[in-house]
């Protein structure tokens, strides 16, 4: 009996934590569609005559059931085994990261590995593979362009992400995510705002969120690396993408926002997951706001922004944090308060330097006749590239890669999946 419970408790817990992101995503897809629709002055999913619940909250369930009954078309000339394995791998990897994520104190975690944060980084470095496999095996030109873009973008942004992640690790002195949370009496976003900024920007690129949504730019290369996929295989890519979004939000909350820490957790441990999910939900919607508001960049801009801005900045942040913190201790100020003040001051200096550098760069480029330095577009954009202008900013020249000139419009509808939303929208406008 005892042996049985010893064996079954971990299995049940694993099952619960593994299924949690899948179930949560069903709700989050609806949230994302609704938020983006509201920002773009649309209604989003509505229950116009359908039994999809209030405000079509069960729209995603209906979509899932529909997509399950669609044919799995394998294009001719495709590399069948690789073609089928790619969507399976992408979902499995997306779920596998959750093994070390502490949803709350103690028991709300599958296994608290000594190397937790490194496990997360290692597992997410597998994601480009599924994209390469999908893009290669489809034998499709669009798919291959998407795969190439995905690889060069996603592996590139892995660098600043990993370097920024090292800052919380270094301040905690542990790779265990549980210990990183426990060490955050003050959330690390206060002590290391620039690490948080770098991490957030790199995360946006890692999860393919606009303005970094090049790998599947729907109006340029159809759907990128999963152009040829249909039915549930397409659904798997879509699911994995949203799971990755959720994972990224949860990880950002854990590393920089204090994870499950919050008022009342010590007394009621069950509040821990609630706090974590509230924080993650806010971060997730922050990503959604960017999604709704940003135009898509070109591939050269995306890569230049990484290699000429984020990577140097990440190196600088890591260096500054490590040196300043050690120097303060070396000078004899060993209390946590003094260390915190030192770190905040260092970040302040870093911020002033950064703004000055960007200003000088902008001035120099302006004198040289270039309106906006391309690599800093995501930060400096103004005028025709208006970062936070909404609908009029949708128009962006096509990537050079296609060799065609043209404009694109509306990035919300993802071609294959959103027909139901289009119809609902149509009906509500007709009324």
């Amino acid at each position: 009996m005892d042996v049985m419970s010893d064996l079954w408790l971990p299995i049940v817990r694993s099952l619960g934590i593994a299924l949690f992101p899948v179930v949560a995503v069903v709700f989050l897809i609806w949230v994302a569609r609704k938020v983006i629709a509201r920002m773009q002055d649309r209604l989003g999913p509505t229950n116009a005559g359908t039994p999809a619940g209030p405000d079509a909250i069960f729209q995603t369930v209906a979509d899932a059931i529909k997509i399950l009954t669609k044919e799995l078309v394998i294009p001719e000339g495709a590399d069948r085994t690789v073609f089928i394995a790619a969507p399976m791998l992408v979902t499995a990897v997306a779920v596998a990261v959750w093994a070390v994520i502490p949803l709350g104190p103690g028991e709300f975690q599958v296994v608290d590995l000594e190397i937790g944060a490194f496990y997360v980084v290692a597992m997410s470095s597998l994601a480009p593979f599924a994209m390469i496999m999908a893009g290669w095996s489809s034998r499709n030109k669009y798919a291959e362009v998407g795969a190439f873009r995905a690889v060069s973008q996603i592996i590139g942004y892995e660098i600043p992400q990993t370097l920024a992640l090292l800052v919380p690790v270094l301040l905690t002195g542990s790779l265990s995510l549980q210990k990183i949370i426990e060490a955050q009496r003050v959330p690390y976003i206060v002590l290391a705002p620039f690490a948080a900024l770098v991490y957030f920007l790199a995360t946006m690129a890692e999860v393919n969120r606009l303005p970094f949504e090049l790998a599947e730019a729907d109006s340029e290369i159809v759907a990128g690396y999963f152009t040829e996929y249909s039915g549930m295989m397409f659904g798997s890519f879509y699911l994995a993408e949203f799971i990755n979004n959720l994972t990224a939000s949860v990880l950002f909350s854990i590393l920089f926002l204090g994870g499950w820490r919050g008022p009342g957790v010590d007394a009621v441990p069950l509040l821990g997951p609630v706090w974590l999910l509230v924080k993650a939900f806010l971060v997730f919607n922050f990503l959604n706001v960017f999604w709704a508001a940003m135009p898509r960049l070109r591939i050269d801009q995306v890569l230049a922004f990484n290699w000429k801005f984020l990577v140097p900045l990440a190196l600088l942040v890591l260096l500054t944090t490590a040196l300043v913190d050690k120097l303060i201790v070396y000078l004899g100020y060993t209390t946590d308060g003094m260390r915190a003040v030192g770190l905040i001051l260092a970040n302040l200096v870093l911020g002033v330097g950064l703004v000055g550098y960007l200003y000088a760069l902008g001035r120099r480029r302006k004198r040289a006749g270039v309106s906006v330095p391309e690599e800093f577009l995501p930060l400096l954009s103004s005028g025709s590239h208006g970062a936070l202008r909404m609908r009029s900013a949708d128009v962006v020249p096509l990537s050079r890669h296609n060799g065609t000139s043209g404009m694109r419009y509306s990035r919300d509808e993802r071609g294959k999946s959103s027909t139901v939303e289009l119809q609902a929208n149509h009906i509500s406008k007709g009324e």
Partner: protein
Amino acid sequence: MPIGQIAFLGFAVVSVIAALRVVTSRRVFHAALWLIVAFFGVAAVYMLLESPFMAAIQIFLYIGGVAVLTVIAIMVTKGVMREDRRILNRPVAAGVVSLALFVTMTWMIIQLPLPEEPVFPVVEGSLSLLGAALVDPKGYLLPFEVVSVMLLAVLVVSLYLGKER
């Protein structure tokens, strides 16, 4: 048979079969995918050796780094890759040489008085010992700094070789 041995045999069989497929696959792209499976098998064996750090580094560096780069190289040069048939260079001679090498090595390993059980228990926090040893002048400081010079050289030289002229 203890569960550890069963797990080891499973991982070993997976990685050896995958490694064999690497050198015998007809398509180079498939060879690269099998290479990843082989690396995974070895990473799992690292977990059996209770070295999660080495397993993570195996996945992070070998699969997420080297294997990705190999796949990109294959995709870039696919025009000249012989897709359908990999011409082998004296396969029989190569097979005999490597089989003889394997038999010799295995025979030597069996002859050696190797421990059946680990002599020392697992040390908690050995990873931070490694971190300290890497920057310790009495430890591995010199290799550590040499690695950074090597990476600098790799970055500059490989970009120089790879860029279009």
